[in-house]
């Protein structure tokens, strides 16, 4: 069953120095019990997308399109309904646990807050639930009485996860939930997250810039570039056999150890990440694209289905695929 469906989502930040189209037409769907990874480098619109899901963007952001959560459009909801949906239906784990926790409240209280708000429980029950949740993420119950600063980064991130689970939401959005953490801790948290999701059958949106991490933990991966999804498909396939040059480059940035091709040969993309306020015409990736052709400069590619439940927004790949398919057909 479709839990989340984005339909041509656009987000534009209106500002003094012109508009920033941070998200430019994204279509995505996510079913219950599945994990969707969103990859892409800094500034490509990942967080904007995440915030848009619960309409948490600042006033300066214009949102267009549709966000269907359990079939209901988040963007047209009344504020009261929206508040009810928030956290109870979908919760978010933000990147900076350091700043996403309120420094002056004990963590137990912060976890209990949405329970009290959305459920019909007493403070006591909420507090017990909070302690239980802490246990679920591997923290002792007495940690509920700690203040955020008394916890390490990984512990804080776990508190955030516990908080996200507080109202048994259908959808959990993890926006760079592990970026700042050590590899060891990162592995723990990612493991914990996917475990919890499968266990509960909730949907998980996992946002990261590390494609290799996503491929290891997600069912499906969408790669974003300059506010658009440029490639989408089953995680393993996207990583091992990218259909968009950008995906390839991103994958190569995280070399696999033992892969002699990567040894003493670091690979990266020439040029700089795009400025969303000043995007090049045509395919936004063309200035950095090793395979760019002339038409890439003028023609904006659409995200097309290329079979095997994979989609790509690269003209070159698309034509190659269709050529291959044509060849196959003729063959």
């Amino acid at each position, binding site marked *: 069953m479709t839990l989340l469906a984005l339909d041509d989502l656009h987000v534009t930040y209106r500002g003094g120095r012109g508009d920033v189209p941070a998200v430019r037409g994204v279509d995505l769907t996510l079913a219950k019990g599945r994990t969707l990874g969103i990859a892409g480098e800094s500034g490509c619109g990942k967080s904007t997308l995440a915030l848009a899901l619960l309409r948490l963007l600042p*006033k300066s952001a214009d949102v267009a399109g549709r966000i269907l959560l359990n079939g209901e459009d988040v963007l047209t909801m*009344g*504020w*009261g309904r929206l508040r009810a949906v928030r956290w109870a239906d979908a919760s978010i784990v933000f990147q900076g646990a350091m700043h996403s926790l309120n420094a002056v409240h004990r963590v137990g209280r912060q976890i209990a807050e949405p329970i009290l708000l959305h459920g019909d429980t007493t403070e006591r029950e909420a507090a017990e639930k909070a302690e239980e949740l802490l246990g679920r993420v591997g923290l002792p119950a007495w940690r509920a009485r700690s203040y955020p600063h008394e916890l390490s980064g990984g512990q804080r991130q776990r508190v955030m996860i516990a908080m996200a689970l507080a109202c048994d939401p259908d959808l959990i959005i993890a926006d760079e939930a592990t970026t700042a953490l050590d590899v060891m801790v990162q592995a723990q948290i990612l493991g914990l997250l996917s475990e919890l999701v499968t266990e509960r059958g909730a949907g998980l949106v996992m946002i990261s810039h590390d494609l290799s991490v996503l491929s290891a933990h997600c069912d499906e991966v969408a790669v974003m570039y300059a506010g658009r999804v440029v490639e989408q498909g089953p995680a393993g396939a996207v990583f091992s056999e990218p259909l968009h040059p950008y995906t390839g480059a991103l994958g190569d940035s995280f070399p696999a150890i033992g892969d002699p091709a990567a040894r003493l040969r670091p690979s990266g993309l020439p040029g700089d990440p795009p400025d969303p306020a000043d995007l090049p015409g045509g395919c936004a990736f063309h200035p950095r694209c090793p395979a760019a052709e002339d038409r890439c400069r003028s023609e904006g590619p659409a995200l097309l289905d290329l079979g095997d439940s994979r989609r790509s927004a690269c003209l070159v790949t698309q034509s190659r695929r269709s050529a291959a398919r044509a060849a196959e057909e003729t063959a």
Partner: protein
Amino acid sequence: QDDDTDRLMIAYDQELDTFNPFKQQFVISYNLSLLAYDTLIRTDAESFAPSPGLATEWEESDDGLTWTFTIREGAEWSDGEPLTAEDVEYTYDLLIENEDIRDWNIDFAGNLVDAEAPDDTTFVLTLEEPAPNDILYGGTYIVPEHIWSGFDDPADPTANDALPIVGSGPFQTVEYQINEFIRLEANPGYWDGAPGFDEIVYVVYSEPDAAVAALEAGEVDIVSKLNPAQAEALENADHVTVNNAQNRRFTSLNINHRAATADGDGFGDGHPALRDQAVRTALHTAIDKEALVDRVLDGSGDPGVGIMPEIFTDYHWDGGGDLVEFDIAEANGILDEAGYEKGPDGIRTMPDGGEKLTFRLYHHADNTDYATVVSFLTEWWEELGLEIEPEPIEMGTLNDKAYLGEYDIVFSGWGVGPNPSEIMGMYTCAVLPTKTDGTERSHENYFCDEEYDRLQAEQKLVADAAERRPMVERQQEILYDHAGTIWLYYQNNIEAYNSDKVANLTPQPADGGMITGQQGFLWAYHSATPVEGSEGSGATAASDNPTATILIAAAAAVVIGAGAFLIARRRRATADERE
């Protein structure tokens, strides 16, 4: 206190130093003592002449050394005990025998040899040297022996702190709140007749403006030391009567004519030019005292001539028509003639062409009138080709400089009593300092003159004003001509009272005299009576009933608050839906 109590509310701005009448220095303490106690002889309300107090009669022996007083019968202490000559003897014995008290009052007490009360109504005082004026104007407060003999140390300033004060005068202090008020209750059995008011309350108003507002609002009945603007404002109030009374004090300029010790050793750093009487006279000539009175005091005062202000008609010297007249040109002429040529910058120099005539002019930093006077003086004197450097200085430092001789021209001023020898004694050679460290401070501006001293010794012994007057006048003339001190003006004491509430305030002296600041006895407060049906009138409605104001204000606050709250709620209802 029920509310029919007739209270005379007096604004005052000074703190009280002590309730011990032998140790006090402050005007307010002096007033409280005058109200609480009696003296043997008091100065009358007419013209400061000695008149009977506790003593109905007195007699001086031929050698002037023995004085016999007849003590009034029937006088009582405020606690009901009778007042007898014993108490008088006790009081004078304190002055003679208690070393501390004697030292404190040495000018007067140093001359006392013996005090004796042969019977309940007779008191005999023996002196070492004749000093008729000291006795007539000396004003010793007679204290109750039955109370004072219980004090451990009567010289202690806090000895007499127990309230209510027991005295024989018309009002005794019963309550004192520092920096707020002093309350005195009338002595209904006062021998000179019960006072017209039941209570006097001195209320602290350290800002004159506040006192003025209070008088207008009817919160206070008598206000003094007003400035012209305040007086003008009060004259517009129907219930207020302004009394622009002559005062007892003078304001003068002391010129460093030569700071020197009794031995004649000069010290300090006074400008040499000022030793020249011509320069001093030129300075004097370039002061328009009329203008100062007009412009600074708004006419509330008189140009200064000599030590004794105009209020003391017996001893005031008017110069006999031979006064220095304001004339810048003449002053310039004097300086030219004396050889102080102008330099290229227009500033005169010493005749030898050396030092410029640059004078430091020190004035009291806290007195804005002085600052204005300084502006005038500076502008006039600069027209003489002098360079004036005015500098406001804290009183303490200013005195230090004055007594160290480290000044050129400095402001000064004294309150003067009816007996001229007291203040004039400060100009005698006898009080010149013996050291140059500035610690001996009995003299005024290092004046010393043989003739002056001779006259001083002579007039001191003369009790009769008519006989004494020419000598005192001559003394003032000597000072005037010397021009070491220039008397600028006698500033009036502008007072105002609530004439809807108070009547029969006897002024002292009778003609143009003052209500506050009286000498020898507070005639005004004793004679004052409440105006019929005055209770509650004169005050504005609002301040009359503070409760009402508060209630109204509170109600208004509640209404406004509630309104604001409701509006806020309504706003919130919509704000809910936004972020």
